[in-house]
């Protein structure tokens, strides 16, 4: 279906090109273009203003709500790869059946116009997925902007994309529902990787991949928790903890990404409105020149007409 649409759109472009008047753009064309550019500039300027006002609260939230992840990450952030699992011999018994699956969760936004924020995440995700030759990874995204590019390149590896997720503001129950959907499909993941934009300041952010160990991996790193006492049912606590850490890390990353998104939008919309301004300046110059040329030629026509009448008299 896509090819037919493409073909027909090509045909359409060809047709319009044929009909186009050659030579200098007319005064009306220029005026229409000038109007469009000015409207777009207005839009980008508004977006810039909205983003910069939202940035402050997003920044504050990213900082404040990040506290939710401090406790768990202090405990678990030391585990950075699942080598411990891969080094084990065949036939080792695990605390639970090993799924051999890794979750890749990309945090992207629903709306665009925010510079390279989503592009960077998608690029990092694709880099991760391209290394995966044994078909171990399962990707899922929040936001529309990540779903489409991942679905075209890795349709089999994409589990699902959360559309309209956190459209207003992220809520924790909604986040849990989203993660529950993933965990219901792959209940005993080896590890999860959350790809998001880590917020630094209003002008800079960078892609970060957060490593979340699954239950089996945590059991392999048991020595790290020897000092910690747990309840009698240690395995159940650790299983719950692995899922809890996934949720808390995901929650903190969501807000980091939201702040980065606002920063990205602010910068890119500022650039866009500057560009729009310079284009509209150029266009209005061209428009005025064309208008003046028209007036001059009309004047010449009138005066020469008058001169011709005088001459004939």
């Amino acid at each position, binding site marked *: 279906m896509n090819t037919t649409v493409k073909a027909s759109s090509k045909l359409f472009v060809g047709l319009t090109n044929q009909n186009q008047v050659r030579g200098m753009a007319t005064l009306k064309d220029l005026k229409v273009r000038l109007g469009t550019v000015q409207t777009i500039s207005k839009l980008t300027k508004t977006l810039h203003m909205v983003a910069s006002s939202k940035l402050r609260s997003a920044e504050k939230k990213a900082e404040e*709500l990040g506290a*939710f992840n401090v406790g*768990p990450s*202090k405990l678990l952030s030391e585990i950075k790869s699942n080598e411990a699992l891969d080094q084990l011999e065949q036939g080792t018994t695990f605390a639970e059946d090993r799924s051999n699956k890794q979750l890749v969760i990309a945090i992207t936004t629903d709306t665009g116009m925010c510079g390279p924020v989503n592009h960077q995440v998608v690029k990092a995700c694709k880099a991760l997925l391209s290394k995966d030759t044994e078909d171990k990874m399962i990707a899922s995204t929040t936001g529309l902007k990540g779903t489409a590019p991942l679905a075209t390149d890795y349709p089999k590896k994409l589990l699902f994309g959360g559309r309209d997720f956190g459209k207003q503001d992220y809520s*924790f129950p909604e986040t849990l529902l989203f993660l529950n959907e993933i965990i219901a499909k792959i209940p005993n993941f080896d590890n999860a990787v959350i790809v998001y934009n880590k917020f630094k300041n209003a002008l800079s952010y960078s892609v970060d991949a957060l490593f979340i160990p699954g239950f089996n991996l945590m059991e392999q790193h048991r020595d790290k928790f020897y000092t910690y*006492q*747990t*309840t009698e049912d240690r395995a159940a*606590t650790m299983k719950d903890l692995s899922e809890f850490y996934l949720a808390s890390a995901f929650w903190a990353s969501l807000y980091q990404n939201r702040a980065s998104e606002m920063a990205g939008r602010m910068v890119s919309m500022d650039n866009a409105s500057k560009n729009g301004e310079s284009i509209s300046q150029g266009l209005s110059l061209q428009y005025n020149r064309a208008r003046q040329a028209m007036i001059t030629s009309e004047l010449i026509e009138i005066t020469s007409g008058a001169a011709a009448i005088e001459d004939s008299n």
Partner: protein
Amino acid sequence: MFRTVFTRSSTLLNNKTAFVASGKRFYADAVKSEDLLTFSLVLPHQTIYKDKKAPLITLPGAKGVFGVAKDHIPKIAELKPGVMQINHEDGKEEKFFLSGGFAFINPDNTCYVNAIEAFPIEQLDQEAVKKGLAQYTQAYNDATEETAKAVALIGLESYQQMAYACGVSV
């Protein structure tokens, strides 16, 4: 000379007010800041306390209520719905109702309490608690399916704890 010293110290001992004063000072020294636990109470959408010092906090663990003071054994504990009590430095007590979560007690005398929801217990509505308790008791008795029964039990236990917290007789 010895005599004077001895008499002086004995008068000090006999002087009751001086003795009480020094005793008080001793008590104040006991709650020095290095003898306190550093704890954080965080919710997903709010940070209630961050790196706050307190002599003692009491948490509703899944396997029973336990208190945490300085030099508590490092622990990872799941929390169930229940009351968390904070004994502040100034002797005041504050009680929160937690909906459950995790508590991490680290070897460096820090404690992170990650709850999903927390409210001061004064904010619990007794009428609503009574209503909820009746509703979930009914649901638990009616439930035949295993999952429905488990869900009802969770609700029932939460409301029982709430009733206990705000003094509604069960």
